[in-house]
């Protein structure tokens, strides 16, 4: 349906997270779409509820209480379309990240080619790779088969072969996968996505169609040795994951009906939105979106319309926290603590929080631990995703982030920070942007909802974003320098529209804030010393127009990579100082 015909419909967006379910209303106000309000409730995918519909209705009820309109009938059915008395909504869209990590078997030919691509494809959703098969695997066919059966996969990703290229080796792999599926009970057979040599598509259908939970065939993710194209396959994968969630979680089918099929995995919707924004705003550098949630930490980066999407359940802040220490040592978390807290307390926090993913820190110590864990989880997730950035998204120095046009952050750990300053510092510490970067905070986790709402109305996301649905934290100037702590590395002058000025002499290791309210712009003059790079090149001075935000203009001269003293006492002192700078 053309967007112009549906542009005045009200849209209820439901986001079912691992810990929290949100109901968000978008409606037309004064001729443009706006974010009206949100309600939330704990997610009920897990026992004792085991039906997401309960949490969805609780979240909608919370939304009703906020805006005083009714969306549910007295017997808890959705009122749709909107009624003349103001009750109900015209359409529903939904995203879901709740559910266990998707156990995935990756099958390909060459470990450095198709298997790598299939692994990257697996990373675009909430998957955990439990087994990999390729040509370098010297196990007997029956051992490979047993290994697939034992891993009890939810999903098999099959890749390999360039289009029109070799097919015999893939056929062997197909045999192993087909037999393994045949040996599994009917109700436990995995979903299969074939994204290899298209010449074999018919054969794949014939061989595996009758044995898979569901078989989907997508265009080849490696149509040639030099080319990788994950986009069509990740779309098919998103659809398979939704089918899987319908099988695993009660209530998903009802949400699918309510939304007339406009339901997507949250991360996929987030990625879709970043790709869209990257194209829309003709981003010359890149857009980065991060979401630190209970089910996973998700990183979506758009470079000139190309999307890199990384979904990392192992870095989620919910039930997977017990496994975090398999990916980092405890010191990796402890380095971010501004309070002197015993290592064992942090270790035990990981377990207690994993028992109760929806619980929140109630004390200062617990909050400090949670913030430290979130920093390390985001730090690791961003570095993992960075490895997959396209060539135009690489930094001159591989250990640094590439320059970005915008960072947009969401998820419980940043949106529920005790203060905006704390959220800002968390993002700066973990992402460590370089150059000049505006930072936006998606406090209501709207981005994925906008990504799925775009399927109903392409105007809605743009209008909602431009109506100020995200909180502008400010513009960050990150200074890279080779200097001693305390040496001056930058002189800045901020010239406001009313003719007044603010100046600062910035020392290496320091963090400075210059006030500039949201919605205002000002001219920022940068004069680096000691060949420091403040975003204009090493030692280069110049002026740029910057946009304000809740934290104003932020000068981060703490070094790239961020310099943290090895001495814990000194490190904690510095961190307290930085916290104090951003308002505690």
């Amino acid at each position, binding site marked *: 349906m053309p967007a112009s015909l549906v542009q005045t419909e009200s849209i209820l967006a439901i986001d079912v997270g691992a810990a929290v379910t949100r109901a968000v209303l978008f409606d037309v106000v004064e001729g443009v779409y706006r974010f009206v309000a949100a309600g939330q*409730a*704990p997610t*009920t*995918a*897990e*026992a*004792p*509820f*085991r039906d997401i519909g*309960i*949490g969805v209705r*609780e979240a909608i009820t919370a939304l009703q209480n906020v805006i005083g309109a009714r969306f549910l009938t007295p017997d808890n059915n959705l009122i749709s379309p909107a009624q003349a008395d103001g009750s109900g909504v015209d359409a529903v869209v939904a995203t879901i990240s709740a559910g*266990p990590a998707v156990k995935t078997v990756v099958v390909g030919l060459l470990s450095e080619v198709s298997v790598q691509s299939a692994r990257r494809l697996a990373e675009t959703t909430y998957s955990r790779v439990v087994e990999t098969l390729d040509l370098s695997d010297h196990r*007997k*066919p*029956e*051992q490979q*088969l*047993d290994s697939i059966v034992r891993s009890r996969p939810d999903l098999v990703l099959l890749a390999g072969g360039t289009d029109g290229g070799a097919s015999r080796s893939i056929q062997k792999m197909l*045999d192993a996968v087909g*037999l393994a599926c*045949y*040996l599994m*009970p009917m109700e436990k057979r995995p979903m299969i996505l074939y994204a290899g040599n298209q010449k074999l598509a018919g054969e794949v259908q014939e061989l595996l169609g009758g044995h898979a939970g569901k078989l989907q065939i997508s265009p080849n993710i490696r149509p040639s040795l030099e080319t990788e194209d994950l986009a069509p396959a990740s779309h098919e994968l998103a659809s398979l994951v939704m089918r899987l969630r319908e099988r*695993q979680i009660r209530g998903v089918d009802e949400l699918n009906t309510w939304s007339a099929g406009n339901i997507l995995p949250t991360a996929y919707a987030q990625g879709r939105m970043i790709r869209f924004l990257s194209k829309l705003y003709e981003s010359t550098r890149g857009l980065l979106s991060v979401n630190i949630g209970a089910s996973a930490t998700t990183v979506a980066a758009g470079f000139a319309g190309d999307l890199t999407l990384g979904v990392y359940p192992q870095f989620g802040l919910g*039930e997977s926290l017990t496994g975090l220490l398999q990916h980092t040592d405890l010191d990796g978390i402890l380095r971010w603590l501004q309070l002197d807290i015993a290592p*064992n*307390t942090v*270790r*035990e926090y*990981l*377990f*207690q929080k994993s*028992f*109760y993913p*929806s*619980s*929140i*820190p*109630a*004390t*200062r*110590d*617990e*909050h400090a631990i949670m913030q430290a864990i979130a920093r390390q989880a985001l730090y690791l997730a961003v570095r993992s995703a960075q490895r997959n950035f396209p060539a135009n998204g690489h930094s001159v120095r591989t250990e640094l982030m590439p320059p970005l046009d915008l960072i947009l952050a969401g998820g419980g750990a940043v949106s*529920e920070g*005790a*203060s905006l300053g*704390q959220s800002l510092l968390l993002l700066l510490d973990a992402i460590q942007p370089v150059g000049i970067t505006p930072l936006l905070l998606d406090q209501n986790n709207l981005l994925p909802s906008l990504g799925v709402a775009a399927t109903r109305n392409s105007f809605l996301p743009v209008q909602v974003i431009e109506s100020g649905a995200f909180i502008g934290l400010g513009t960050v100037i990150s200074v890279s320098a080779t200097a001693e702590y305390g040496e001056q590395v930058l002189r800045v002058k901020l010239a406001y529209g009313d003719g007044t000025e603010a100046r600062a002499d910035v020392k290496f290791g320091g963090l400075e804030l210059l006030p500039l309210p949201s919605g205002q712009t000002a001219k920022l003059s940068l004069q680096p010393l000691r060949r420091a790079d403040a975003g204009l090149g090493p030692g280069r001075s110049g002026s740029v127009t910057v946009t304000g935000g809740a934290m104003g203009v932020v000068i981060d001269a703490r070094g790239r990579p961020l310099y943290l003293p090895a001495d814990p006492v000194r490190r904690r002192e510095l961190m307290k100082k930085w916290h104090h700078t951003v308002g505690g």
Partner: protein
Amino acid sequence: MLAPVLHVLPMTAIVRERSLPVAGRVTAHMNQRVNPTDVIAEASFAREHVLLDVARTFGVSTTVADKLVKVKEGDRLAQGALVAESGGFLSRSIRAPRPGRVMVIGGGQVLMEVGDAKIELRAGLPGTVVQVLPERGVVIRTVGALVQGVWGNGRIDSGLMRVLLEKPDDVLMADRLDVSLRGSVILGGHVRDAETLRVAAELPIRGLIVSSMVSPLIQTAYQMRYPILVLDGFGGMPMNSAAFKLLTTNKEREVTVNAEHFDRYSGNRPEVIIPLPFTNEPDEPEPYETFAVGLTVRMRRPPFAGMIGTISNLPAGLSLLQSGLRAPAAEVKLENGETVTVPLVNLEVVG
């Protein structure tokens, strides 16, 4: 707001499904009285498979190879049984390398499952079979006390419960364990060293219920052959008073320690079951409640983790926490008389 419930109940109906991971044979029957160690279902499954490549061995096409196969799908074969024969003057043969069953024939290959393994599913709790799940298992119902925990090492057993703690914050040390405890289930406090777990294994004991344990002991706990059930969590947490009172007043009773893993999706969680005689059969407990004034709750997280109290007020809107966060919260009157503010998501109803 909806509230999850932690069951700590002196007398309740307990209904549990016990089922095989694969299809098998159910040996228990409807209305049968079962003990925890009774086998109620069994299944056999192949540990591995063997693929016999007839086409390649005989050097013939797959179509020809399929015609040379002498067995049918489903056939059970002894070791050395003839699987395929090439025929002709110098006939060659392929024989079953191990005893097993023919699963699939096709494409010039024969797939056999070999290495049969048996699973015996035990009742896990004393009670009566109230439903038979064909090929899967049974539903068992019993009446007694029920205490749920947060972590288990995956084992299950029953025995007489001996109490080795006087106060909820007692520490269980190896020197408290002696031969008089052999064969019993021990109720201890906090465990902080592997030596305690190993000495308990040497006696041996049939179960260990603790308030808390330090997290580095998890690997050792998994190695123990007796069930270990953690009631309150990891770290130095005392036993919650509701569980402490209920368990210590049931000392010297026969208890079942089901230390299964906490599965947040199925709802299976570690629990202690104490079968008790009854006159009027009680109802099953509610799986969840709605937060309300007067409900007994347990705090899940610091600063009051593990403590029990009663909701005295549910303020509207968001409350400011010491952490600086704002969240819907309850005012909870603790057992020591103090009233504290706790976010609702950090509470569970005890009942």
